[in-house]
């Protein structure tokens, strides 16, 4: 799995930090608040219960007291309810028996043993405190004090604290995102400079003074580009020197063998054969050097002009002694924006290839498909085996028929050059079987670029 980006990781880190911090703060303050409020509430409840108990105690002091009436005289407000148990009977202000179930047995026992007790219980209407106060004459006075309000307050508090924690986490993530963006912005400048250099602008440099923290990066980046530019320049000069040093003796060879060739008829048989060999090999060597030099500089950007490819294909056919009728142009315009010199070579090399290895060209077809324009050269040969179909575009790979024939074959660079030229035009070239036998070389260029 791919490791998440720096920015994602920093953002996640910030978010986690904010979450842990805000969650623990929220938990802590919730707990503290809950304790304080509950303790306060209990104190109030106990005080009120004892006051009630005092009133009840006084009321019961009379002769034959009406217990229910005594209970009714209590000012219990909306939250407290008082009940009394005397001699195993329950007394309440209203006849709601459910209330008596709220008093746990254990608490009742404690009260009956003469000890006051307090316990949190859960009644039908929510949480409540049950306070039991023992009164004389085996009487227990109980107050059930509803904690609903406290409960609601605590719930609101929890909700607020949760929301705050979520908000803090989101803010943390946002901060992380922002900080990394700020921190990574100078790297965008570096990336932009690198892109410019890739596009061929070797003058692009970074200004070390704009971002003091990244001065070392900028300085070493600039040094790298300086060295790269120097090396490229050296390479270019070397290539130019090689080109000159190879072309000059070839010129002498070409002119001198031309002269020799002219006088071949005046030479004896052996010398004439030698001259023929010499002339042919010089011609082949010339092609090889020209192709190699072309390959060496082949990644220069193409010089695109509108070229009528059907016209060009016919011309190239004619220069190779082929009929212009080989060219079939489909519907629509055959004008492509390409480097004319390079496509002349593409056409020429494909036709030469068909001639050398494919028993001659059968057809040259031009047309348009979905979003490409294409050029096809069909031949009459044995076709290309599937395992060879990529290899044949490599340098110095020659087809087998040519080797078997043993005569002067090509330079082994023709298809490599085709591949290079088509690629620098943003297209692709591949070979398939022609329906009915033979090979079909197909060049495709994206339609929006031609």
């Amino acid at each position, binding site marked *: 799995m791919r490791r998440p980006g720096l920015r994602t990781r920093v953002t996640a880190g910030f978010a986690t930090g904010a979450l842990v911090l805000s969650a623990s703060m929220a938990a802590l303050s919730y707990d503290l608040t809950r304790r304080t409020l509950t303790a306060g509430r209990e104190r109030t409840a106990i005080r009120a219960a004892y006051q009630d108990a005092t009133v009840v105690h006084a009321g019961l002091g009379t002769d034959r007291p009406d217990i229910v009436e005594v209970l009714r005289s209590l000012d219990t407000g909306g939250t407290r309810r008082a009940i009394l148990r005397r001699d195993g009977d329950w007394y309440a202000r209203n006849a709601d028996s459910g209330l008596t179930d709220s008093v746990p047995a254990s608490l009742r026992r404690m009260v009956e043993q003469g000890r006051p007790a307090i316990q949190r219980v859960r009644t039908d209407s929510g949480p409540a405190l049950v306070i039991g106060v023992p009164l004389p004459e085996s009487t227990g006075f109980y107050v059930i004090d509803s904690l609903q309000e406290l409960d609601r307050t605590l719930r609101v508090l929890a909700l607020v604290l949760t929301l705050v924690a979520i908000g803090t986490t989101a803010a943390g993530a946002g901060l992380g995102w922002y900080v990394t963006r700020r921190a990574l912005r100078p790297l965008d400048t570096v990336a932009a400079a690198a892109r410019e250099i890739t596009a061929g602008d070797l003058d692009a440099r970074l200004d070390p003074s704009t971002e003091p923290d990244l001065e070392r990066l900028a300085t070493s980046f600039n040094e790298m580009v300086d060295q790269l530019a120097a090396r490229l320049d050296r390479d270019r000069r070397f290539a130019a020197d090689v080109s000159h040093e190879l072309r000059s*003796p070839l*010129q002498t060879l*070409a*002119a*001198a063998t031309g002269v020799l060739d002219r006088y071949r008829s005046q030479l004896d048989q052996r010398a004439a054969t030698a001259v023929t060999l010499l002339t042919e090999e010089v011609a082949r060597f010339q092609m090889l050097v020209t192709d190699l030099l072309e390959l060496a500089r082949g990644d220069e950007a193409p010089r695109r002009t*509108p070229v009528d490819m059907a016209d060009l294909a016919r*011309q190239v056919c004619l220069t190779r002694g082929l009929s212009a009728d080989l060219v079939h142009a489909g519907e629509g315009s055959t004008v492509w924006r390409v480097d004319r010199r390079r496509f002349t070579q593409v056409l020429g090399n494909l036709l030469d290839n068909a001639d050398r290895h494919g028993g001659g060209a059968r057809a040259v077809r031009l047309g348009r498909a979905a979003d490409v324009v294409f050029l096809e050269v069909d031949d009459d040969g044995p076709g290309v085996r599937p395992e060879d179909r990529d290899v044949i575009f490599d340098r110095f790979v020659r087809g087998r028929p040519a080797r078997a024939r043993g005569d002067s074959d090509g330079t082994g660079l023709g298809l490599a050059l085709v591949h290079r030229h088509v690629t620098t035009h943003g297209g692709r070239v591949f070979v398939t079987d022609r329906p009915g036998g033979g090979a079909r070389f197909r060049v495709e260029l994206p339609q929006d670029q031609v």
Partner: protein
Amino acid sequence: MRSMPAVLLIEDDDRIRLSLTLGLEDEGYAVRGAASAEEGLAAQRREPADTVLVDLMLPGVDGFECIRQLRRHDDVPIVVVSARDDTHDIVAALEAGADDYLVKPVAVKELSARLRALRRRARSALSPASALVFGDLEIRPLAGEVTLRGQPVALTRTEFRLLCALAEHPGQVLSRAQLLERVWEYAYGDERLVDVHVGRLRHKIEDDPGAPRYLVTVRGMGYKLQR
């Protein structure tokens, strides 16, 4: 018998000079060799050749400067034969005034065909006496004269042939390929030849070469000469 056309060959490499001399002599040229630009310029002043072949990398005065100095008072066809195949060099040499550019190694037969093409007079199917008039521009194909508002314009032979090729079809677009074929007799070739020559021609016949009035570019198609 017609006298042999004279070729001045400015080339510092002795072997190339010797082999090209042998080859061109076989093709029927009288070849004079020069090992430097200075020597070549002096030879051309003393005894003008019909065509000049020049290398670009020469000791002392280089090929570009040599072409410029030759052009100063000569309309002789100049062909560059150089080992340099860089676009910059090709365009610079053509802008300096060369008529054609061949990259070494070049076969003598090919070289001879180029020289023959450049030495040919402008062909014209039009009646010899009449002048072709384009506004203030008057072209007399047979006399080899061009005047702008009555003043003679000095054109090289190739520039003149290019102008005539366009003038024969007033207002009609000729593609670069057509012009290459008609002026340089190339079946197919380097279209930069046409572009640079059109530029040179504009500097001579247009008041504002940047906004041409006569020799206009038709985008994606070619050039035309309009009245």
